[in-house]
């Protein structure tokens, strides 16, 4: 009787693992439009920087700090994204566990970790803020310039700014990359530029104006952008690596 089958069986039995090992995948981000029309106003962004991260992909249908205590992939850092550049910008590497993901959660560079007493911008956030914008609004013969720095932070300690972001579902396989697309111009769609124009010829530092008068149109504009940053989240796609 040959021993070969037994030896082969033994060798076969010795192989295997508890699952596929973790791998790293590129994380890229790109901007979308730089210009939008809001009523009679044409708004052109001349600067749009966003702090992206930390970012987590989750197997659960609705990612949250409670339902996604263990992530399937993560970018545990913050990187600045130039939203004016439509080309993919490498932000770093994503740590990935193979498997299917259905949701994501992320911060815009400002975190409120479970161990933090209050929200705080992480290293890598542009200017220590979640986002920084500058642009020009033109309507007929009227125009003005504006700048705005925004802090968009989690509302609850230990949570994420954006939770329950549905994605895919897609399988995280080695050889893929995560691509994030952010339409920064769309975040200004809810701003009342007529009211901002009434403030004067500009340029308007919206943060300074809002600090002077919390009821000013500048404060409303900042609130509208903050709301849009939550309501119009980035789009995430798992693509084959080039």
């Amino acid at each position, binding site marked *: 009787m040959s021993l070969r089958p037994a030896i082969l069986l033994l060798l076969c039995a*010795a192989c295997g693992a*508890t*699952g596929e090992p973790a791998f790293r995948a590129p994380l890229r981000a790109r901007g979308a439009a730089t210009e939008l029309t809001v009523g009679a106003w044409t708004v052109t962004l001349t600067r749009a920087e966003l702090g992206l991260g930390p970012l987590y992909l989750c197997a659960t249908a609705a990612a949250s700090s409670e339902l996604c205590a263990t992530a399937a992939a993560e970018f545990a850092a913050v990187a600045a994204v130039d939203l004016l550049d439509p080309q993919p910008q490498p932000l770093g590497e994503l740590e990935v566990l193979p498997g299917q993901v259905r949701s994501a959660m992320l911060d815009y560079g400002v975190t409120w970790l479970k161990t933090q007493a209050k929200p705080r911008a992480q290293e890598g956030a542009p200017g220590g803020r979640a986002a920084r914008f500058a642009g020009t609004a033109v309507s007929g013969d009227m125009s003005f310039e504006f700048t705005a720095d925004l802090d968009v932070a989690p509302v609850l300690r230990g949570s994420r700014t954006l939770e329950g972001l549905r994605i895919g579902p897609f399988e995280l396989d080695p050889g893929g990359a995560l691509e994030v697309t952010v339409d920064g111009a769309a975040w200004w769609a809810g701003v009342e530029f007529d009211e901002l124009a009434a403030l004067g010829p500009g340029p308007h530092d919206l943060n300074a104006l809002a600090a002077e008068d919390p009821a000013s149109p500048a404060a409303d504009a900042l609130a509208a952008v903050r709301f849009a940053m939550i309501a119009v989240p980035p789009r995430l796609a798992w693509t084959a690596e080039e």
Partner: protein
Amino acid sequence: MSRARVTLCACLAACLWAAPGWAAPAVVPPSPRHRVDAVYPLAEARSDTVAVELAVTVEADGRVGATEVLKSGGAAFDDAAVAAVKQWRFEPARRGDLPVAVKIRVPFSFAPPVQPADVEPAPSDSPAQPAPSDPSPAPSDSPAQPASSDSQPAPSATPKQPVPSTTSPAPSTTPPGAPSDSEPVLDVAARSRRPPPRAASDFVVERDILAAPPRQSAADMLSSAPGVYVARAEGEAVAHEITLRGFNAAHGQDIEITAGALPLNQVSHLHGQGYADLNWIVPETVRSIRVTEGVYDPRQGDFAVAGSIDFDLAVPRRGVQLRSTGGSFATFRQLVLWAPKGQEDETFAAAAVRRTRGFGINRGGLSGMAMGQFAFSAAGGWRGKVHVAAYAARAGLAGVLRRDDVAAGDVGFYDSYGDPSANSQSASAARGHLSLELERRGERGAVTRMAVWTALVDFHSRENFTGYTQRGVVMPMWVGRGDLIEQQNRDFGGGMRLSHRTAGWRPAPWFHAAFEVGASARIHNIQQAQNLLQAPQNETWDRRVDATVLASDVGLYGDLDLRFGKRVRLRGGGRADVLHYDIDDRLGNFIAPYQIESHLVGHRRTATGVAAGPRVSLEVAPVPWVSLFAAYGQGYRSPQARQLDEGERAPFAKVHSTEGGVRMSPLGGRLQLSAAGFATFLAQDLAFDPEEGRLEKVGPTRRAGAALQLIARPLPWLVAAGSVTYVHAVLRAPPPATAENPSPPYVPGQLLPYVPPVVVRGDIGIDKDLVELGGHPLGLRVGLGYSYLSPRPLPYGQFADPVHLLDASAAVRWRVVEVGVEVFNLLARRWAATEYNFVSDWGTRPIPSLLPARHFAAGPPLSVMGTLTLHF
């Protein structure tokens, strides 16, 4: 037609195979290896010859156990005879390949010292002396002689010629032809501690192997069984973690652990189902351990999934033992052990205190244990044993560390996170129990056994595995206060066991049958609480569990023993257990703060279920020293009570266990070999969940592998044992879906985490008298124990580092004093007692990772202990 021919041929072959006579091999009586002369009590000198007769239990390891004076010659002569025979060493009696304890009659004759003409020189112990142990065994089925537990006829005794001393003035030794020189064995089975094996992997680790390498606890002794790995990962005052043949049984979830009639697994324990804390057992009182790897015996009950373990508590070496141990890390242990001479080996009292500073931050501990046992004979042929024990311990726990934090230098390998929550980790345990066992042996193997027990066991721990990841359930705004999980489990329970084995029925010379029926019952009242604490004040900031569980288990089994001639034995039957739970979950139907209150919090429910299954084993012995085994059985593990819904039929985790193998004992039993191949299928496995600090379901699993064990006793003073176990443990289906992960990743053939594929163990023990010094032997004892674990798979494709551990001891004894040294982890390996892979946040990085990371609990470094033992 062809099938009929095959059946006929098989029957004929079986009939030819089955020679007339009873099935099991006869008992070969013990023979003395080392004798010590009795000293004539000159103060009580008489002019006539004084005769003393002793009934002496020769244990399976060859040592002299209990002695009883059958015929007294006066207290001084009785004591002299007992003192002498206690120093004798025997080649143990054997039934087939198994050493068994027997009771023999040993007469002593003290001739008067004033009659020098009668004095004969005492026989020396030199090998040249003709061995007086050769009388041919004579079968003795007479009812006057108690029969063995499995109704084997007691063979004749081979009592050595007693040899009192001839010191000057020379008292006489036994004259040749002294009466009762060939008294038969009085009783074989009453002390035959272990039933015959059910399978090739039904092991008994005897005292000589247990005592070979140094041991810090009784649980450490388990590592000498094939395929067993034992670690004290969490620290002192917490139960050991046991891996048995491919099962990471954690604190006992997959192993039925008993000490005689006393079950040690705790049902529905908050820290882990089947939690079994063995720290109350004084290791010096463990005579042997039976490790049954697999489920083949109808007596195996709840938690017998990987198998079962039974501790046999007795002290063969009688007298008073005072043992002090001290050494590394300010560790100190004091033992007092009293085993009254002339009493049964099962009669003893022991107490020990252990204190240590620990091998790193927050690892100190203090424990005390006391236990006593009294074996007695009662009217009507009943024999009994009362056992009582108490134990208390408290210790600091260092917890686990992230590998990446250690690699980055954020924390030392043996340290704890320098954090109030980490430094507040601790555990305490306390227990007290009482048991009574009764046994009555009848003719032709009939045995009736009864046992009752009660136990109060308390467990309290504060452990933080994950750092700062938890959010309050009661107050969701409370977060990041530290995941210091407080668990309390207080269990008061009691139970009983009954069994009766019928007398052997032999309708034909080649056929023998016996039947045993038994029942067991236990009931527990369990108080459980789990909270989150905020260090350092240990303020409660969240409540997770507040429950009372009443758990009951009523089991019934039947076991048929059929022997066909000398060579074929078929045993088997069935077992059924009814489990009932009444759960008062005081936090059930919890109302979160953001919900409208529509009811009152609390959920009371009951559930009952039945677990039943067959067990069978076939043994074929083609030659007396070879036995082939095939075995199959179904076992079960009861569910965690709080996971049951109202009316649920108790979803037991059922295991199908099968094995084939061989046991050999050539060279007169000096060499013992067992080899087995096995496969085990489990319906629902559990794995440790660090977030909740308890076990969670992982799905159905399969284990297949092989085990090889070799024990050699080539010389009376040398024992060597080695084993290799290989197992391939895989998940058979994806883990259960959860809200967190609706489709857990699964690859066919995916390895089961935490199970080491290869476990190697080696033990060597030397116990020898070297030279005479001042008229007393100078003895040397050396022991080595080596364990190897191949890399253990961890979740998410990770593997733990392999483990190499070498422990060694050496001691010199002279008269009543023994001085020794014990070294643990002699290779000074930096090793992880256990490893996990999970998410944690200890504040060592600006943004915490939510990916699983490798964590470990450090194993003890090189430790050196000195021992001083006085034995009176």
